């Protein structure tokens, strides 16, 4: 079983350390605009929800990619963008129903969470354990998988 990111919004304070860590990991600059994890603020409810790719088993983004630029990392199970192959067509950005694959104008490529090769920077940077990297049998992850399945076009038996 792969390990996965576990997110507990109740513990999030909205500090965005995760976004800085992610963007630094990705491009060597502190730049939340290019973070692959995003914290959404529900101001009226006083709620902060970090959100990123669930690395779904049957990945829409991967299937939709016309040039084979999204690959599964054998060790982490992460769906990774191969930047040398990505042509920037953005089909994956509309195919992913979670809205977690985004286009980076500066690079002309898409970006998504790749679990940092098995040591996610966001989880390391999170001061409140709202984001942790846990064994894959974490129930919440399965819940998100189930959620993913519900949005599926093709319901498998």
């Amino acid at each position: 079983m792969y390990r996965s990111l576990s997110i507990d919004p109740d513990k999030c304070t909205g500090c965005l350390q995760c976004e800085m860590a992610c963007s630094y990991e990705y491009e060597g600059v502190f730049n939340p605009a290019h973070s692959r994890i995003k914290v959404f603020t529900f101001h009226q409810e006083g709620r902060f929800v970090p959100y990123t790719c669930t690395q779904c088993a049957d990945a829409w983004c991967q299937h939709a990619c016309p040039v084979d630029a999204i690959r599964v990392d054998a060790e982490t199970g992460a769906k990774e963008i191969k930047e040398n192959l990505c042509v920037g067509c953005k089909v994956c950005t509309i195919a992913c129903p979670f809205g977690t694959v985004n286009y980076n104008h500066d690079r002309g490529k898409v970006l998504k969470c790749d679990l940092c090769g098995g040591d996610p920077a966001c989880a390391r940077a999170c001061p409140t354990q709202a984001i942790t990297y846990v064994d894959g049998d974490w129930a919440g992850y399965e819940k998100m998988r189930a959620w993913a399945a519900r949005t599926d076009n093709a319901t498998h038996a």
Partner: protein
Amino acid sequence: MRHVIVGRGPAGVVAAETLRAHDRASEVLLIGDEPGPAYSRMAIPYLLARQIREEGTWLRHDTTHFERQRVGQLETRVEALNAESKTLALANGTTLDYDRLLLATGSSPVDPPIEGVDLPRVHHCWTLEDAHHIMESAEAGSRVVLMGAGFIGCIIMEALKLRGVRLTVVEAGDRMVPRMMDQVAGNLIKQWCIDQGIEVCTSTRITRIEPGDEGLWLHCEPGEPMQADLVVVATGVRPNVGFLQESGVEIGNGIRVDAHQRSSVDDVYAAGDVCEGASWQGGRGVHAIQPMAVETARVAALNMVGREATHVGSLDMNVLDTLGLISVSYGQWMGVEGGDSASLLDERSGRYVKLRFDGDHLIGGITLGITEHVGALRGLIQSRRHLGVWKKHLMENPTRFMEAWVSTVP
């Protein structure tokens, strides 16, 4: 058991892989009529723009991929299907038996019914071969006329522009990408293209192309004739079903399939651009788009190996990058009767968002200049999420769709 797949586009390749993943034993054979490795038409514009080389268009980059998957490949054309005998007549004169057959033959460009479309230097932009022709003629400074500002026309446009050509786009419809964008968005894209130095003529038809001393002459209605060194025709496509004339397979606008991607004939399935299946919003249609091609292929393949899978209808979705202005459309962006609509327009910065609702469901939308988290629109539409209080929030500010999505995640 022998699975035969006709067509080596994304649908054919994904189907072959899905078959193999769920059936280690059977023979899987992939037939295509173009030379070289399986490639993606979606990538051709990037080849034209010199952003990638030909390998960059390949659907699978590992040259031993199909071998390792034990997927056989055959380069030939299928001339006819005999469903009774479960055989295919091939262009090389032989026949091929199948146990289960997937038709993923895609579509081909349609020529407008005008004089001169068969002249040299008038090309489609559909195959790698077409791309090579275009690359030969479309050099810096050359005059290029692009016929058709639909989705395909528009994705080629940037590539041509990047090659430094003097580009004129002629579209018969009253706006750019009329099947994907409403009037507001289509006009914004048009203005954007004009600002980028492209001449755009909408509501204009090319009536005749004739050779001249210095290139081609294109006669327009309305307007003066224009001169071109190269004409690229992108006026639409239609499913490749010609070889099925006598087969008994029911054809509508494409091969008619049920929710399991089965055609009207036993053991014959269809997927991708060639099939006419259920639409997400009800009714039927041909959904010639990349994400639906691979999803229908997966469903078809699963059923072919005896795993029941259902395709609950194709949701239209498109993303287009016209010289840096990115537009997205989903589902029923044109709306339904009695449904609410919310939109925001900022002409100055080229931003636009429009959401369409049916009750408190999102059923479609358009964004222009907004790329962050657009996939969530698909999530909201496809999960038929009850928006509850978020309906009101989205009516007030439709850009908040990602929040609407995240807020309803458990």
